[in-house]
């Protein structure tokens, strides 16, 4: 017997958040649970689906690989009420302190765009590696600008070699503060999303970065912006 529940009016609310530090090791699936609990603790009136096993409705904008930090993640959640009824400043205040180190809610608003309009993401990749200097940075840039740029991609159906050059919209590499610093704009639409880890993988294989002592070498990936065409995604 299904519990009888009235239909509850609900509205999609968008949350922009950053996810940095050790939270980079937490997947979006894990973050899904984390947000559900956060909403309950904070008293945000999330809407629950009808049926046998009611659950909140959350959608993340674009994937973020484990091991990457981000300043601009987007999450849509269904909140009880009409757009007029929903008290955005109140929700913003409730989520001001997540209580979780590295997780900050940057903004809460009623969205006017769809996640499907997202096309690209900007990343900053920093590499601490032995032999880092301006020459190595230039060599890295040369490699990443090659077309075609082939690498082995692991997919569900096995490994296969693919050309990723078309998914790299822009890339530049500099040497600063003793590090190799890469700024890259990569495809982020759902059909041709490029994981920035592939850039690191290619440089590791072709330029010899990150091949030394892991206690002294490291890299970080940070998503800094998300775009819908030429404009920053809202």
């Amino acid at each position, binding site marked *: 017997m299904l519990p009888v529940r009235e239909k509850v009016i609900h509205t999609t609310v968008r949350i922009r958040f950053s996810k940095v530090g050790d939270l980079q090791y937490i997947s979006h699936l894990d*973050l899904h649970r*984390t947000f559900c609990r956060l909403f309950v603790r904070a008293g945000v009136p999330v809407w629950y689906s009808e049926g046998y096993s009611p659950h909140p409705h959350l959608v993340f904008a674009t994937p973020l690989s484990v091991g990457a930090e981000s300043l601009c993640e987007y999450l849509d959640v269904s909140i009880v009420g009409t757009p007029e009824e929903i008290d955005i400043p109140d929700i913003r205040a409730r989520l001001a302190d997540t209580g979780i180190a590295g997780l900050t809610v940057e903004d809460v608003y009623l969205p006017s765009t769809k996640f499907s309009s997202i096309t690209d993401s900007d990343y900053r990749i920093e590499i601490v590696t032995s032999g880092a200097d301006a020459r190595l940075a230039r060599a890295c840039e040369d490699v990443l600008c090659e077309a075609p740029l082939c690498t082995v991609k692991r997919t569900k159906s096995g490994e296969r070699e693919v050309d990723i050059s078309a998914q790299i919209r822009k890339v530049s590499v500099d040497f600063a503060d003793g590090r190799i610093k890469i700024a890259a704009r990569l495809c982020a639409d759902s059909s041709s999303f490029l994981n920035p880890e592939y850039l690191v993988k290619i440089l590791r294989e072709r330029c010899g970065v990150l091949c030394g002592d892991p*206690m002294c070498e490291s890299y970080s990936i940070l998503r800094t912006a998300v775009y819908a065409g030429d404009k920053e995604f809202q």
Partner: protein
Amino acid sequence: MNSTILKSVSKPGRYSGGEYGQIIKDKSAVDCRVAFCFPDTYEIGMSNLGMRILYGVLNTEEGIWCERAFAPWTDMTEQMKRHHLPLCAMESGDPLSAFDFVAFTLQYELCYTTVLQMLNLSGIPLSAAARGEDMPIVVGGGHCAFNPEPMADFFDIFSIGEGEEAWPELCRLYRGMKADGRYSRAAFLHEAAKIEGFYVPSLYTVSYKADGTIEGFAPKYDDIPKRIRKRIVKDLDKVYYPTKTYLPFIETVQDKMVLEVYRGCIRGCRFCQAGMVCRPVREKSVDRLFDDAKCMYANSGYDEMTLSSLSISDYSKIDELTDRFVEFTTQNHISLSLPSLRLDSFTRELMDKVSTVRTGSLTFAPEAGTQRLRDAINKNVCEADLLRAVNVAFDVGKSAVKLYFMNGLPTETDEDIAGIADLAARVIDAFYKNQNHNRQRRPSVTVSVSCFVPKPFTPFQWEKQDTAQELMRKQELLKSKITDRKIIYNYHDADVSFLEAVFARGDRRLCAAIAKAAERGFMFDAWSEYFHLDKWMEVFAEVGIDPYYYATRGFGLDEVLPWDIIDIGVTKEFLAREREKAYAGIPTDNCREKCSGCGANSLGGERRCCP
């Protein structure tokens, strides 16, 4: 933790920490630091209720900081060894060797080598005798500590019984002795041995008879007890409960609110260790449970809650409790689960209440295939109970049932084995005979059979275990009796159960084997991919230990048992009486019907049914 290494291992979220609800304290403001270690993966350890309780209760004390540590998976262990990284606590990232106490909870026997690997990774000497003044005090607790002897060499102290009141006392003693300059390792251990519930194995000498059995235990001092009495919490309504706790980010085995309803068990199944060592039954009041539940929900935001205890339907106010919970859970979209349901308590009413949000799978444990054997093991349920229970389930459209059994129980015959197949077949019949059965689905019965392990402090503690060959023969026999494809048959590895029996019934001499196994790099024996009996047999041979002596030998009634040093309240005489009744096939009344004088009432406390 170094990011390059974290990025190179599987599931880095196991190690990165930072969970909501973890407790961070100022190191300079505390004088007693405890690293609470779970000798298995993060996912299993984070689900453990005992760890949450002790973590919470110790951290309520100013001056004490309790942190968590888990066993790194083998890929991480390899990285740590390669780069000489010590095992660290999650909260501070400090190595375990820097703590005052390193505590392990011993939940199952096959975690023993993992304990030693964790000590190894921390640079803490395995042998308690080899630890210097600057090394942490290593303390073991949990269910396996009821027979601590196979791990006696590696632990400075064992905590016997419930820890939430005992642990703070131990820390108080430590801090006091440190503060007034009386502390030395030896002096502290001597004092600790005087607190009820703490066993310091190095302060007891074990002597053996010519036939290899134990002659006796002798305390090295006159002022420490001859036997160590387990601790119990006297009043569960007044004791701390972790209503605010750490919440894992990554998926763990049991990631939900756990509400402990009562401790102990009124039943007394004769194979069950938990049912004996947790006596006497002490309950929490409905009010306290309800308050705790609301608090837990507000502090966590979890949408699942499970009521935990050995047999939930035996809670004396189960109807009142579920009635009160229904509204609260429905309103907040919390799914309520009741594990460990006895099949004689499974009613339509109860099912409706717990299924308001979500219904789980249906599992029952008849344990044995015939009434004769169920009587012998004191599992007081009958076939009619089972058929009534499955009909309740079939009435509401369910079609799958899971049944748990045990092979190798004392007095078991081939007839009892065949009885398992018959019982499963009758459940399938019951499905088709049920007028309301689900016409869209085929019925399925999963028969899951484990191997009997004679456990300390049970009426069957003296029994020999069937040999692995005999267990395997019985497994094959049952397989041949199950012909219906709607019955799915699973069984446990007999070799694993054999090793469990060795450690469960072992004495101090086994320490040599466990140390040797650790030297060989054994760990995660409880994980089938790392369990290798042949390698263990090599280890036993090398140190000159006959494992069959512990597992497949019947122990004499007049023998001093390795765990006789521990006093759980339940007397040996009672256990022997129960064993006789098992042979005679006579069940025993449950504690609510009639007290059978087990002795646990001598422990005191706010008992539910004891005289």
